[in-house]
């Protein structure tokens, strides 16, 4: 792709409108929204979003009070009614200000004015324990973005997640696209993760001949809509050289029985993995902040516990430290690529093995330059 795709503010704004405001994006974990009034907050495409549980129903709203624009929920996650801290306006599951304290004395909105007040809402879809939202008023069908097999695999695996979740966010100085390109490149671990991940996983690198043909072929009119589904896949990825017999692994309901590295890549910016054969799972969400800055939101959870064990916090903390090590290796490489970019930088030369990335690139460039096919 041209350097501008990774560096230009104008490109970034166009990409946000043409891609991110139209696709389904990961928004959080249902396990963090399990009780009435539980909520999580996010910033999606620059818009503050709150996802809130109303008596078991999940709703996604713009996280701004209709009165003075204050954020309704302030914390990253928690449990409280959807209620503004500024003047106490409270909202119902339809997004209407059901309670305006001192309304008759101080505000005196007409019935028609009040009827017109409603938080901006967003389409929401859950798959197993994963929550996705779509920022578009007329969202594309979820099944247009992800095929049925992929959705089923996400659902099955994420239903295995335990409810105790560790999470944090750090910022990388790179464009988000470098992350999806890197994740679809199984040849990098042996070099980038030689002392970490590659010591326990034999990542398989094969040239997909059919994909090479597709990537090189002139696209047929209308084929773009179907292409989108091919950018996401998941399941068993590579064999493990054994799974360490840590005691906690015996205390969780393992997903599956393969000693395998599982990977789920959901285009555009979600990566889920289980590096220990279904005993624990990590979610990495690469959230674009600016052309050269990406928030890396990391979650870890084990598979469901058979019974509580007292040191589960430390297991999650250790897993998070492992992420910092491995993902940190990726971040250093991606930051190096980003730092080298300039207006006249040469475009990369991707070979047969990278047919998947080339196919995405072709679709993406059509989207960015011609409006694309959704």
């Amino acid at each position, binding site marked *: 792709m041209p350097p501008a795709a990774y560096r230009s503010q104008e490109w970034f704004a166009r990409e946000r409108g043409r891609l991110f405001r139209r696709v389904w994006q990961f928004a959080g974990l249902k*396990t963090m929204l399990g009780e009435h009034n539980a909520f999580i907050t996010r910033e999606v495409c620059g818009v503050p979003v709150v996802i809130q549980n109303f008596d078991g129903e999940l709703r996604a709203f713009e996280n701004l009070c209709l009165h003075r624009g204050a954020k309704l929920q302030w914390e990253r996650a928690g449990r409280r009614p959807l209620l503004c801290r500024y003047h106490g306006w409270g909202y119902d599951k339809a997004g209407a200000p059901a309670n305006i304290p001192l309304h008759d004395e101080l505000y005196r909105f007409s019935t028609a004015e009040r009827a017109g007040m409603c938080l901006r809402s967003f389409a929401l879809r859950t798959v197993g324990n994963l929550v996705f939202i779509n920022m578009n008023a007329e969202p594309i069908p979820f099944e247009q973005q992800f095929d049925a097999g992929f959705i089923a695999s996400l659902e099955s695996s994420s239903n295995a997640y335990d409810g*105790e979740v560790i999470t944090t966010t750090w910022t990388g100085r790179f464009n988000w696209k470098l992350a999806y390109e890197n994740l679809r490149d199984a040849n990098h671990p042996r070099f980038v993760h030689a002392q970490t991940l590659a010591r326990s996983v034999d990542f398989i690198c094969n040239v997909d001949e059919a994909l090479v043909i597709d990537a090189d072929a002139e696209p047929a009119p209308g084929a773009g809509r179907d292409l989108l589904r091919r950018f996401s896949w998941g399941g068993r990825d590579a064999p493990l050289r054994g799974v360490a017999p840590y005691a906690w692994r015996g205390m969780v309901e393992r997903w599956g029985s393969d000693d395998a590295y599982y990977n789920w890549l959901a285009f555009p910016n979600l990566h889920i993995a289980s590096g220990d054969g279904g005993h624990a799972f990590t979610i990495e969400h690469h959230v674009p902040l600016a052309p050269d800055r990406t928030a890396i939101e990391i979650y870890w959870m084990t598979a469901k516990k058979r019974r*509580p064990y007292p040191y589960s916090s430390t297991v999650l903390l250790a897993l998070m430290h492992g992420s910092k090590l491995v993902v940190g290796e990726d971040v250093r490489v991606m930051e190096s690529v980003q730092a080298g970019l300039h207006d006249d930088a040469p475009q990369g030369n991707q070979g047969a093995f990278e047919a998947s990335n080339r196919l995405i690139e072709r679709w993406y460039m059509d989207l960015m330059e011609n409006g694309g096919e959704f």
Partner: protein
Amino acid sequence: MSGELWLIGCGDIFETIAAAWPAIEPDTVLHVVRLESPAAIATPFEERLAAASPQPRVFAALDQSALNFARFDVYARLRLGGRRFCTLIHPSAIVDATAKLGENVWIGAGAVIEARSSIGHNTFVGTRALVLGAAELAAHGWVGAAASVGARAKIGTHCVIGADVRIGAGVEVGRFSSIERPGHYAEPIAERTYIDALFELPVRIYGSARKQAGTAG
């Protein structure tokens, strides 16, 4: 105190205590059971104390890795086995007479424990650390070198207050938290929060460790 004491454990704190002997208790004979690493607790170690006299005092000294769980494991197993634990105070530490110290507590060199403060079982206070008036440190904790816990502050179980961390007066730190980025903390810190130099934002754990969250949506 006279008699014998069996010191079991490994790591920096273990070596610090062993090296400071006999200044800590000049009349007590020290027996040392040095574990190869914290991982060694996965195998039975109790038999290595078999030669101890019928009612020996013991002290478990392991560093703070994994939120003090390795030290907790040694302490709990020996405690359940009927061993008697003691509290060790470096001779250069200053401990107010009204402070309450639990068992298997270590107070390091130059530390100051002020009046009406309390330190729970199996909590270690490092070199030159300060625990100010009426502060409460729960069990299985760690206060690093030169750290301070402000007056009336409350630190939950299994917490790590890292070296050079200053917890403000009256601040509450929830259990299972680790604050390892040096600095002053004046706001409450929720349980299961991890702040260290590795991560630019605090790491948080959500959801119950004890039961599954419901599924909604």
